[in-house]
């Protein structure tokens, strides 16, 4: 059986995608709470705050690459500096099919997998447990 997640973060600036992604995640029934952020900075601020206040951190993070203010790569770079880097299960979720970006994502220890858009409900959970 697949694992259950308490708190999922979606970091993506495309509102349509976020809406659809949330629908899919909800239908899969394994995500208790889903919160989304328009860019990396907002997400990082939220996580840093939670960490400071000793609140529960998200146990899964879906991270887009192209975003204003703080994009996916910059977010990863900053996360690497924090103590909580090992507690975040980060999955890159991008429409990119650029191999160099997929390779680049493997350099970050905190990144568990690279998932290409579009997301389909069918084999999504497998991708999380690879």
């Amino acid at each position, binding site marked *: 059986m697949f694992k259950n997640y308490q708190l999922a973060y979606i970091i993506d600036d*495309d509102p*349509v*995608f976020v*809406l*659809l*992604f949330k*629908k*899919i995640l909800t*239908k899969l029934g394994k995500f208790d709470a889903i919160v989304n952020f*328009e*860019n990396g900075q907002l997400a990082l601020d939220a996580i840093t705050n939670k960490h400071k206040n000793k609140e529960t951190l998200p146990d899964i993070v879906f991270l887009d*690459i*192209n975003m*204003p*203010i703080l994009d996916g790569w*910059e977010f990863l770079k900053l996360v690497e500096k924090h103590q909580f880097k090992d507690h975040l299960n980060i999955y890159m979720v*991008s*429409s*990119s*099919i*650029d191999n160099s970006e997929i390779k680049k994502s493997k350099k970050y220890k905190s990144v568990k997998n690279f998932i290409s*858009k*579009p*997301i*389909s*409900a069918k084999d999504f959970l497998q991708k999380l447990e690879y």
Partner: protein
Amino acid sequence: MSKSEINKGLLFNQDHFNLLIKLYKSSFLDYNGIEDIYKTITETAVKGLKIIRASYWEIEGEDLVCKDLYDATAKTHTIEKKLIAEYLPVYFQALKDGIAIVADDVNSNFYIRELKENYITPLGIKNMLDIPIRKDGKLIGVFCCEHNKENGVWTETDLAFARVLCDILNLMIEQGKRRELEKELLETERKISLITENSSDGFVVIENKKVTFASSSYYKLLGYSENEVLNFTIEDVFNNIHKDDLNKTKDFIYENLGLKNKYFKYQFRLKGKSKKYFWREDSACVIYDDNGNYTKYLIISRDISAIKLAEEKATKLVALSKNLNAKLANFTHIVSHNIRSNTSNISMLIDLIEDTDEYAEKKEYFQLLKQNNNKLSETISHLNETIDLQFTSKKRKTEINVKKEIASILETYKNDIKTNNISVEVTVAADLILNTIPTYFESIVSNLISNAIKYKSLHKKPFIKIKALKEKRKTVIFVEDNGIGIDLMKNKDKIFGMYKTFHNNSDAVGLGLFMIKNKIEVLGGTISLESKLGKGTIFKIIL
């Protein structure tokens, strides 16, 4: 005065005199080579001394080799077998030590006894006079006079006459050798000048810090005459090197001279008389004296203007292809992210529509599908616009009045400026004219003004300052605001990228600066900016 009177009291008689005068009056060039001189001298000796044979021998290695022997009886010139030093030690020693071997009677002379058996007796020689010939104190030959008179005696006159002939012969030989050398030298010079004058490379010799030789191939290219170049000092040469190359070249040369390097090469631009610069590659060969000072500085100077031109073209091509590559990468990126993000949304929507049976949900998805479809069309039309820009660069340029053009652009923002209480300051000369594509100029300035309005500060009275001026035949335009600014530390590489936005502003598309930069590049200009968060931004455009 009669001839006999001139001769009174002298050793020589008239016949001697006539013979010697004839020789004295001749020069090397009157003879048909050195052999002819040998023959003349031997014949003169026979005539003057009234003897049967005269011969000239030269030292070759250790031995004496006969160069000519004149026989008065047969009236023939022949060559005798050579005399081997090893077998005739006494004779050779006598020649080396003495002024002459004077043998009135060949039988009683100690020094020539080794010659008796094989030479004197078979040839019927009775009297012998051998005079060594020296150069720089060293024996180089011997002049032999031989006679067959019983009880004959060599007189002072004979000795003197033979001596004079030897001296003349010696002089002639020297002259001959000098001629040979001169001829060789001339030939070498001819070959060198053939090379230096016809080569595309220039040849220069510098001695005592002055040009002492320059080939015509060198000074003609630079437009100088030979004399002008020959007066050049090293400083003159340095003064003609392009200022951007001077220090590098000078340092390199002095470094190599300091290291006593014999060969080195360097490239620089050298100014010709017409002030035009030529790219040259100098291959230097330096000769140093025992104290390590350079005495001769030889240069082969090659014109490499064509190579440099080709290099420049290649560099430009590389830059161009790099630029195109970057654009291509940017497009790939856009296709990858912006088009795919839309299509992936569409395919997710289709999946969701298929998966649900509820009409209300389906309807919601259809609505989103429509939205997404519009966005995709928009993205594609943006892409089209940018690609168009790359291919319509040949649009006609016309002259515009910058001040008037800016005023009319500001007119379209009149309402925004008024409602936001923005003060606008335009500093442009009334007669500033710019040759440009008017629609591009309008779109560039308009976009910058619109950005300045959009990203104005909410905490202070906003201003927009526009300044334009001519600078070195270029037009420089500044658009300054005191708005919220852009974090350049973070966004330096992305500022002018496609679909890049820097603020949480929902209506930002991230296309404005990208299009501005593209249009400016099409116009052959550049754009840069200074910005500080919370302070404002200054864009600088050079057209």
